[in-house]
């Protein structure tokens, strides 16, 4: 609100600069090593395009799942403290510490054809998730979910509860209060959480290849394509990585008014 905005504390700018350089340098590295001549060639290859579209579709679907399931979980976690809540908080964090490949293994143990739930699912409904697009979405959602939940819950905890009271006195149902009052107030955290979840899903590799396989055109997302290229040479992989980065940068830039709205 202050247009004479408070100056940044000393040192902040310098450290922020270091952070930005740390993030930027590897990208420049990729950029500088990518054989540019190949970029257009790669960008028009049908497999690469397939992988890009698949990545976009699956990561979008995974982000939607993450939101639909993660937001209720965050809301529930934000309730009055109890032993169960603490347990669930720890539980939500744990999948993040698993290396994604192990996450994929765990998913197979759970949802594979011989898995805890996968076996009955296959026997009774004939549904099998591994090695399908749905499997990709499941793997990505599983990996991305904790990120969204924790970010959203952080927002909820910082929110001023009295607005919820105000909405209730105006006759709003809990549902309406949630949609019209709570969510808009924590929008920045939700946005951050969605961004985290989407990016995490888009870049997800280990769980996907383990749970959903690496089938060209079906489950081979861009990270898997990049990984396959890495078998040939780091340079080949960097072309595809640059493509992935450009592509997601493009998406972010297109949606910048949604991700990063001007206050």
């Amino acid at each position, binding site marked *: 609100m202050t247009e004479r905005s408070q100056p940044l504390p000393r040192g902040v700018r310098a450290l922020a600069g270091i952070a930005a350089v740390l993030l930027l340098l590897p990208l420049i590295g990729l950029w500088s090593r990518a054989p540019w001549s190949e970029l257009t060639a790669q960008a028009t290859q049908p497999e690469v395009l397939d992988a890009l579209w698949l990545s976009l579709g699956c990561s979008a679907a995974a982000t939607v799942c993450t939101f639909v399931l993660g937001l209720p979980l965050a809301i529930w976690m934000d309730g009055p403290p109890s032993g169960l809540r603490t347990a669930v908080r720890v539980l939500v964090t744990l999948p993040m510490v698993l290396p994604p490949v192990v996450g994929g293994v765990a998913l197979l143990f759970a949802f594979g054809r011989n898995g805890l739930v996968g076996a009955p699912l296959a026997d009774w409904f004939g549904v099998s998730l591994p090695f399908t697009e749905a499997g990709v979405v499941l793997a990505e959602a599983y990996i991305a979910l904790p990120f969204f939940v924790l970010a959203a819950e952080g927002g909820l905890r910082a929110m001023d509860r*009295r607005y919820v009271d105000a909405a*209730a006195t*105006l*006759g709003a149902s809990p549902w309406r209060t949630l949609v019209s009052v709570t969510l808009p*107030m924590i929008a920045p955290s939700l946005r951050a959480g969605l961004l985290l979840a989407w990016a995490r899903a888009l870049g997800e590799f280990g769980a996907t290849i383990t749970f959903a396989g690496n089938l060209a055109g079906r489950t081979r997302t861009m990270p898997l394509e990049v990984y396959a290229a890495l078998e040939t040479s780091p340079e080949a992989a960097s072309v595809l990585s640059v493509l992935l980065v450009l592509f997601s940068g493009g998406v972010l830039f297109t949606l910048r008014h949604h991700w990063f709205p001007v206050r």
Partner: protein
Amino acid sequence: MRLRADIERRIGTLDLRVALDLGPDETVALVGPNGAGKTTLLRVLAGLLGVDRGKVQLGDTVLDAGPGAAFVPPQERRVGYVFQDHLLFPGMSVLDNVAFGPRSRRATRRDARSSAQTWLERVGLGDLAAARPAALSGGQAQRIALARALAAEPRMLLLDEPLAAVDATARTTLRRELRELLAAFDGVRVLVVHSIDDALALADRLLVLEDGRIVQSGTLPELVARPASRYVADLVGINGFLGHCTAGVVDVAGAKLVVAHAEDGPVHVTFHPRAVSVFRERPSGSPRNVWSAPIVSVEPALERVRLQVGGPLPIVAEITPRAAAELRLAEGGDVWIAVKATEIAVSTA
């Protein structure tokens, strides 16, 4: 519908124990010192806080019967609550804030907006419909909060200092508007105010809450006649004390006051600041109560000066600005105080 409540509720250091019986045909002004529990009481009535023990009942409906028992949540109580700090939803326009109540009651967007616009105009801010709450001044926010509460068509009105930040002109109109609204409103109406003017202009009855308890309830004349506490005396602007009368002399914490009507036992004594005479020298003459006291403060008010003196019987005197100048009150020191016995009202406590 009558509101009958018997409330016990602890929160932080406050221990609220209040029994209420409010009719639908009266407006009650809740007054009391800061931290007395006024806002807490409103929150209990609105259902934002539950009672620890007791019962809140509106007509035949039990709203709250204590933990684990019947409880009607706030959104089903149809209360119109103006919060002390407004709590306008920051992400919505002013119009949407006001339309929030009707929308929650399933009005169509159109209807909700048009009724919101009507309410905005009633509080004199029709042209702010599109503004964001962050762009409002304090007083504007308060008026919008009032419009928002009223637009929800409540059955019970709880207004927490609804006019505190409103300017003089708007106050005149808003008070009038509010009085009409309150009169036309068929339901329980409670408003918290700090100014006796607002209480008088808007309420039929005052309820004095101190430290979680109701210490007095009644009309202004009743409060003026026998203020139950220092706070009430200050509120109504008179000098009032609790004392013990023995043979025409009232003992107030050691100080003696001679009064005209003598009824032995504990009594309220009150006298108006205008009934107090002030002198630089010891006066000779009829007043039976004469004493010397140090000047605590001299406060100019409209067409008069309020003089506060200390000593064993701290009182307020009201004199003309000319008298104040002649007495050189501004210079401090001691003055002589005289109060005629006949000016002191006494009633059994």
